[in-house]
């Protein structure tokens, strides 16, 4: 299987008044096509830098980022992004917000087709009937759903998400996890998800990448074998298999934080 995303030996440092601040150190990440990679790590370890690198928004000091067998040098139209802040444009309706990437990526696309495409996605995430509302009239969870639609409306190869569910309450978050799985089932895409939530990483990810503390390097990669067949179910999180995976991840995070791992209870 070919890798859609290949991050090879990436090292990066930010220039600060107190000298260079290294954030990534020889980082290697590979995500095969169609896979969902969840990235966890201590806070401030350079996870967001990773998303900006994959999106081509910045260039690493050393190393290479490959997307679809091509070296990433600048932003490319085949990427979709979603952030913790849904970043809705308040002066546009929900529908117009979702159609925004199409205006950039496919300027020639007829309006009717754009509307159809956007409505199809809004329907998938359960926002039918809200398309003509302003973002300020929607709840945080609904705004985040619209934001996800916008991130994939132009059928990107890669969906990059930087803690998109971080600011939501627990129930809304679980709802959106489910939505995420439904979206992937209908519209397969490769995804990189930055998260602080280990349960989220296991529930959504095909692999969970644990980054070490700053400067971040790939410390551990967990292949997720989620219990059950077909679409993942939330109940699966409460099985011994998942408990085992979560314990392993917790242990790794503690090592990443430079602490002595508490003995995991198996």
């Amino acid at each position, binding site marked *: 299987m070919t890798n859609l995303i290949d991050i090879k030996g990436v090292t990066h440092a930010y220039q600060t008044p107190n000298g260079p601040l290294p954030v990534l150190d020889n980082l290697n990440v590979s995500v095969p096509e169609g896979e969902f990679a969840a990235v966890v790590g201590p806070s401030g370890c350079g996870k967001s830098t990773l998303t*900006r690198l994959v*999106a*081509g*928004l910045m260039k690493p000091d050393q190393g290479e980022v490959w997307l679809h067998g091509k070296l990433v040098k*600048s*932003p*490319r*139209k085949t*990427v*979709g*992004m979603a*952030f913790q*802040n849904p*970043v809705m*444009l*308040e*002066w546009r309706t929900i529908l117009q917000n979702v159609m*925004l*990437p199409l*205006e*950039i*990526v496919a300027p020639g696309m007829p309006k009717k087709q754009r509307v159809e495409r956007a409505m199809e996605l809004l329907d998938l995430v359960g926002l039918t009937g809200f398309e003509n509302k*302003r973002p*300020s*009239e929607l709840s945080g969870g609904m705004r985040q759903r619209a934001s996800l639609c*916008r991130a994939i409306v*132009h059928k990107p190869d890669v969906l*990059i998400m930087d803690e998109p569910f971080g600011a939501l309450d627990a129930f809304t978050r679980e709802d959106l996890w489910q939505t995420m799985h439904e979206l992937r089932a209908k519209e397969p895409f490769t995804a990189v998800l930055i998260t602080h939530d280990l349960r989220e990483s296991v529930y959504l990810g095909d692999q969970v990448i644990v980054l070490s503390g700053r400067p971040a390097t790939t410390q551990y990669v967990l292949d997720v074998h989620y219990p059950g067949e077909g679409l993942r179910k939330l109940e699966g999180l409460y099985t011994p298999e998942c408990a085992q995976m979560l314990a392993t991840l917790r242990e790794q995070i503690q090592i990443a934080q430079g602490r002595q791992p508490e003995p995991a209870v198996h």
Partner: protein
Amino acid sequence: MRNFQKVAVPVGAIVIFLLLWEFLVWVNGWPNYVMASPSDLPDAYIRFWSLFVEGSWQTLWRTVAGLALAVIFGTALGMVMGFSRIARDALYPLLVGFNAIPKATLVPVLALLFIGQHNFNTVLMAFLISFFPIAVSVGIGLSTLEPEYRDILRSLGASRLTIFRKIALPKTLPEFFGALKVSVTLAFIGTNLVEIISPHGRGLGALFLSGQTNSNYPLMFAVLIALAVLGIILYYAVVMLEKIFAGWAERPQH
């Protein structure tokens, strides 16, 4: 009902204000060369009707012209300061310094620079006094744009111009209109300053001055009220534009 209330409340407030004014003059027994009362005003308007129309028109068009220049120049300056740190660092002290100069002192300077160009000088003063709030708020609006807003378009390979047109410009509109409301009043001050201080005599300012020289106090107060009315008209014109172009920023009231 809601619309009726919208008109009735401010009109009622104005009526109460006029009644209080009238009462104050009556209670103190002030003759109208000390303080004119509202009941003196209709007479002044009737006697000098044509002068009021002419003066209002001159004041209004020169204010609007100065304001238009301030919008163009202020927005351009704000864009430069919003996008470039160096420009921001370089221009801020200059701008603040310029803004701190009492504009009355500039009237003779302008009068000497452009001798006899009364219209030009007046428009220029209205402009000079009113571009500052616009430049600052557009500059701040642009420089505080959250990086995520830029990133959603930049990650798709959109050009800087597209990002400006689709994101930065509309997002700055509420700040822009906020500043414009301040600038409207300032521009009026600029126009009147020149009309009163400079001896060429046009506009409502000149009418005010002639009231003063002739000790016609009701006329002076009538000019002040006319200026207030013009100011209100222009202010609400801006509010209407704001509703059309930045109405989305208004949150629904619950």
